């Protein structure tokens, strides 16, 4: 359903997420609320990095998280809805 050349694997989230998480993020377990598939953050399909990173379920493309980097902030939205967290990074 998706073109493997169009996305990276979720390991590419390690850098920006390590700026706001004090634990190793890529091994975090996640379960898709849409198709019920589960796996690690590293297995998500990652689109971007611009204008932001969008990590999606490898099974059904449901949005797992969005991450937008600004100069002094990182915005993190979990799931497909709205309600972002804005973290100050500088």
């Amino acid at each position: 359903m998706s073109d493997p050349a169009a996305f990276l694997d979720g390991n590419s989230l390690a850098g920006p997420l390590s700026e706001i998480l004090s634990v190793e993020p890529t091994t975090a377990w996640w379960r898709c609320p849409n198709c019920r598939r589960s796996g690690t953050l590293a297995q998500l399909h990652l689109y971007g990095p611009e204008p932001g990173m969008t990590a999606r379920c490898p099974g059904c493309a449901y949005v797992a998280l969005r991450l937008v980097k600004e100069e002094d902030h990182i915005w993190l939205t979990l799931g497909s809805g709205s309600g972002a967290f804005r973290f100050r990074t500088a």
Partner: protein
Amino acid sequence: MTSFSPGFRGRPRALTERLPPGQYPTESFPVLSAGPTPRVPTENWSFTVTTELGETRSWTWDQMMALPQQDTVTDIHCVTRWSKFDTRWRGVSLDAFFEGLETTAAHVVADSYGGYTTNLPLADLLGGRAWIAHTYDGYALSPEHGGPARLLVPHLYFWKSAKWVRGLRFAHEDDPGFWESAGYHNYGDPWREQRHWGD
């Protein structure tokens, strides 16, 4: 300084005057993606406008192509800082889709195949400033660039020109879309450099 031939439209604007702050010009047409590229055959395509009262109007591909077609040459500006001059589009003005619709709504959410959304003021979609575009540079719009049809609102940053558009929803409330809810500016005027919230 490079400038266009005056042609029939009087004194040209120098390219540097057409470049919003913080942007650089590009000859290429970069593809930015937030998910898998939807492949929507035109025979399955439809476009629906839904008013705040739930009234709907829908067009099939053939019905859309039967509406008055307009050719537009315009500059486009991506929030990732590239701008592209004199892009050539063909499509249908949103004024044609909205003709005769009764609404008191001030806000619109554009919905796309694949789940993308973006929010815009209704006023920005009126007056010949916004289109459903199906042709780019003389060719059918490719899926990578939003084909078979995308929203084209060139006076705002290009994330507002939703690829693979399938509908517009009018609303009294302003609901932020996919990128607007994740840190990007709610309006996105390139001339005021409205990239992120707070800009």
